[in-house]
């Protein structure tokens, strides 16, 4: 599947989406999962849970798992040359779908995620499938085990569709820092999908898969979700096992979920959450049934969120935030008020300190975590006649410039004589940030902010200006420093590209209160008017 995929001659998008294109004419896009929904939605209607409709369709024998998988794979095959969201596509998807169909034929029980195609970020280990974290240093590396999150969704019937592109080791906000390819934003192919989980966000946005896993160290799930117009969920630190997630900054890293609806992101979270004896930092707290939040809109009263206290973080609408973003967020504020929420502005004085503290801590930890890529046990080993040269050459060849820069920064920050001024001070800032959030969340049920200061920007635009790129993380890094859960979901559009660019709203909750975020997010999403959820080009193609 992969090889044929990549050997397709390049096609222009117009040709690709043209109905006269012979290559796709025979392919009915109507058989993609939207068919599973009871009514074929227009691109502006509220998103429905694809996971639940797949389950319904399979159980009612409307469609087979094989048909479903084929429809996704076909779309993937056609869109991939333009998007490049995958570094590897599994050869076993159809085989696994067939085996699921046999089980359904035999009336065997099937898991909640049966037949659901899941994209997995390439820094999350998948057994016997390439897992490179977007780095040359791990080119051709195939782990001997599945990450716990992968193992868990597989046990519920989920199928790994492939490995998604990313900034090398998660270091970047555009996915341009991948050692292998640049992923395009499905809303505008000249723009970045965000990062570092850009491949996972683009894949869900373009419906190349149903849901996907990403990782979020400083916003790497939420910012691409915002850029690609999908739902991105960053769980509380400790909610999901990190076992099998290639570490970038261990005290900040979490595995997160992408879906085309809040419900899908929530269902995927249910599947992968919970204590894991292989991760000493995973929480032993019980995992509530997140799916119970996803009640039908018809059952909602006129003020379904009556009494909910929502705090808008003042510092997130300061200078440096695009006007279009501000007005989209203010639109979201009005919408929340209409739903019955009590809105107030809250101040987190430590908010601006988060960015420098984050870059010190994340770089410091990464300088340590990436030490293991020394060319001794796996990856590409340089030929050298002396040990230090072997390390130096293997690492010089294996790592890209962004990674090298962060290793250097981190090594500096941890060095004797600098530790107190950098690492230790950043830890103190982190404590302060945690306290500020605690106070704000004692007074509010949730906090809201933009997910990013701008919508998706052009490929190459910030490539040579790392500080500008780092500044884009201002909305998200504080949440990682505090270890809190946050949900990003589409709330509006700004001008840009052919059809406008999506804007994401960030909702931040108290630790381990993903339940509340999902409930609010679901109601917000289901009641939002006039917001498109499927990139128009993909929707057009699906409508044909």
């Amino acid at each position, binding site marked *: 599947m992969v090889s044929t995929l990549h050997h397709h001659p390049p096609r222009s998008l117009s040709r690709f989406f043209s109905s006269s294109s012979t290559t796709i004419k025979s392919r009915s896009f109507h058989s993609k999962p939207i068919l599973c929904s009871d009514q074929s939605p227009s691109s502006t209607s509220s998103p429905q849970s694809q996971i639940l409709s797949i389950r319904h369709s399979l159980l009612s024998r409307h469609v087979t798992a094989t048909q479903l998988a084929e429809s996704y794979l076909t779309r993937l095959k056609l869109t991939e040359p333009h998007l490049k969201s995958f570094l590897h596509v599994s050869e076993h998807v159809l085989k696994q779908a067939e085996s699921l169909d046999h089980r359904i034929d035999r009336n065997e029980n099937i898991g909640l995620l049966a037949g659901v195609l899941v994209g997995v970020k390439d820094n999350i280990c998948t057994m016997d499938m390439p897992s490179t974290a977007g780095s040359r240093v791990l080119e051709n590396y195939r*782990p001997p085990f599945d990450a716990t999150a992968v193992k868990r969704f597989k046990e519920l019937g989920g199928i790994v569709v492939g490995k998604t592109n990313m900034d090398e080791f998660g270091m970047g906000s555009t996915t341009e820092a991948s050692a292998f390819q640049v992923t395009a934003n499905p809303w505008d192919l000249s723009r970045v999908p965000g990062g570092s989980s850009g491949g996972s966000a683009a894949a869900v946005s373009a419906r190349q898969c149903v849901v996907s896993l990403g990782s979020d160290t400083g916003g790497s799930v939420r910012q691409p979700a915002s850029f690609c117009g999908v739902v991105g969920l960053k769980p509380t630190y400790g909610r999901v096992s990190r076992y099998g997630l290639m570490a970038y900054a261990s005290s900040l890293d979490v595995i997160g979920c992408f879906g085309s609806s809040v419900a899908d992101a929530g269902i995927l979270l249910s599947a992968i959450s919970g204590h894991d004896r292989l991760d*000493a930092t995973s929480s032993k707290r019980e995992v509530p049934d997140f799916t119970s939040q996803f009640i039908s809109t018809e059952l909602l009263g006129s003020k379904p969120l009556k009494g909910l206290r929502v705090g808008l973080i003042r510092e997130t609408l300061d200078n440096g935030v695009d006007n279009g973003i501000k007005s989209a967020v203010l639109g979201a504020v009005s919408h929340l008020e209409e739903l019955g929420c009590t809105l107030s502005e809250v101040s987190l004085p430590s908010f601006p300190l988060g960015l420098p503290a984050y870059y010190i801590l994340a770089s410091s930890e990464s300088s340590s975590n990436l030490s293991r890529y020394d060319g001794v046990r796996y990856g590409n080993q340089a*030929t050298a006649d002396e040990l230090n040269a072997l*390390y130096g050459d293997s690492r010089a060849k294996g790592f890209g410039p962004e990674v090298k820069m962060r290793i250097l920064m981190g090594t500096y920050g*941890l060095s004797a004589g600098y530790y107190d001024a950098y690492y230790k001070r950043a830890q103190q800032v982190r404590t302060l940030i945690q306290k500020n959030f605690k106070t704000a969340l004692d007074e509010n049920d949730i906090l809201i902010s933009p997910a990013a200061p701008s919508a998706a920007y052009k490929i190459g635009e910030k490539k040579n200006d790392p500080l500008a790129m780092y500044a884009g993380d201002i909305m998200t890094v504080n949440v990682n420093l505090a270890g809190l859960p946050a949900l990003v979901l589409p709330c509006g559009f700004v001008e840009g590209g052919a059809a406008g660019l999506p804007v994401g709203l960030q909702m931040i909750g108290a630790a381990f209160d993903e339940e509340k975020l999902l409930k609010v997010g679901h109601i917000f999403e289901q009641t939002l008017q006039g917001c498109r959820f499927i990139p128009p080009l993909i929707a057009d193609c699906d409508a044909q």
Partner: protein
Amino acid sequence: MKNSQIQPATQEKQQQPPQIKVSPQTHQTKTKTLDKITQDYEAIIGIETHVQLSTLTKAFCGCPYNYGSQPNTSICPICMGLPGALPVLNSKVIEFAVKLGLALNCKLSLNSKFDRKQYFYPDLPKGYQISQFDIPIATSGYLDLDLPVEFGGGHRRFGITRVHMEEDAGKLLHSGDGDYSQENTIPLTLGSLLMAACLLCFGNLLQVDLNRAGVPLLEIVSEPDMRNGIEAAEYASEVQRVVRYLGVSNGNMQEGSLRCDVNVSIRPIGQSEFGTKVEIKNLNSFSSINRAIDFEIERQALLHSQGQGDQIVQETRLWEEGSQKTVTMRKKEGLSDYRYFPEPDLPEVILTEEFVDSIHRSLPELPEVKRRRYEKMGLSMQDVLFLANDINVSQFFDATIAMGADVKLATNWIMGDIAAYMKNEKLSISEIKLAPEELAELIASIKSGTISGKIGKEILFELLAKGGMVKGLIKEKDLVQIVDPSEIEKMVDKVLLENPKQLEQYRGGKTKLQGYFAGQIMKISKGKANPGLLNKILLEKLNAKS
């Protein structure tokens, strides 16, 4: 200091009473002037000891560790440091650390943590070692010991600076190493993912065995309280005794389960500031600790006395067993920067008072306490040190006297015939067939006169080799001593009657012949006649008719 032998300081694997051997010749070639020079200086010695814990599994993963396994057969993604793998602490490591901390009279940190110590080396798969930096689990303790009698004896207390938990690294194997032929370097069991556990460097094929990577260690740092090689060797030997008593490690130096690095500096007597410190590695036995330190003290003293004190530089030196010298391994150019920072993958280590108390209650009687108890029982220091040296020997002894056996007699049997037998047969006390209660029974039987001491010895060897019960053996072999005077009298009469010529000679003044008669009588009694009674009756009869 240069005596020929230190008596049993400890026991090695075979559980043979170990000896710190110092060949008398070693230092005799040194001139008297050198001895005089060293007298003008005081040596300051501190020891870092790494104790490999005998937990069933490694510190942070489920792999077992067995010394001497085929390379890379006991490894998993975690101890190989594969991407995405995470450490989870084996709770036994904490338990053992608390045990040792308490045994070394330390203050325990109820809140400690792990840190990463970062450096690159091929045997360190993650590029950092999980260790403890600024908050070790135990601090500020001490270790008491008694120097062997041959070295003048004396009680010593050496300070313990800290005890901390960490993980071991793997081992580098050079392709030329005889021990690791082509055959046993293969099994990099995780197959394809190990594209290379091999490095081509320095023109040689260097291979890495990760079996030992991640095995838990406790590092014990002593205060610089030792002043000579014997004190240092005895300190190390007491550490070994303590970890064996606690059951936290086999303490075997040959296998690297107990590794000592010593720091030596000297200063003119009377000077308060320390001299330049030199670290010595590759000390594989207590005697090499002793000899390496004494060599180093002499080397440094000689340099000082020749006005070349500036040639003593901060460095790591290697003890060469062959040449009996320390040689430069690497010079330290300033301190290495290990860029320590808190290990984010592991939660803090929190000890509750209840947990510490429960460990405290479970501690065995420690060597120092045992020695003081034996001393109070009236045993000589030589006996005390012998019995307390090995926990199994001391338990055997304790069990024997618990059955009511005479303390001195039990000591003599254990240190004499039993120890000799163990040595000849290369057995440990737990491998001999003799049970402590039977030794007690044996001692009691002799004391009560049921059997003679000579018969007792015979029974002992039977019991050592085959086991069994003293009572059963006595009965079965009809070994009960003849204590009936009339029975003995009959035998005496019989012998006198059968040897009229000798009787005449005796009565003629050749009284030495009494021994001959006694031997004859003992022979016909099959060794069972009570010797006292026999001699008494014999004398009466010999002298009666004269």
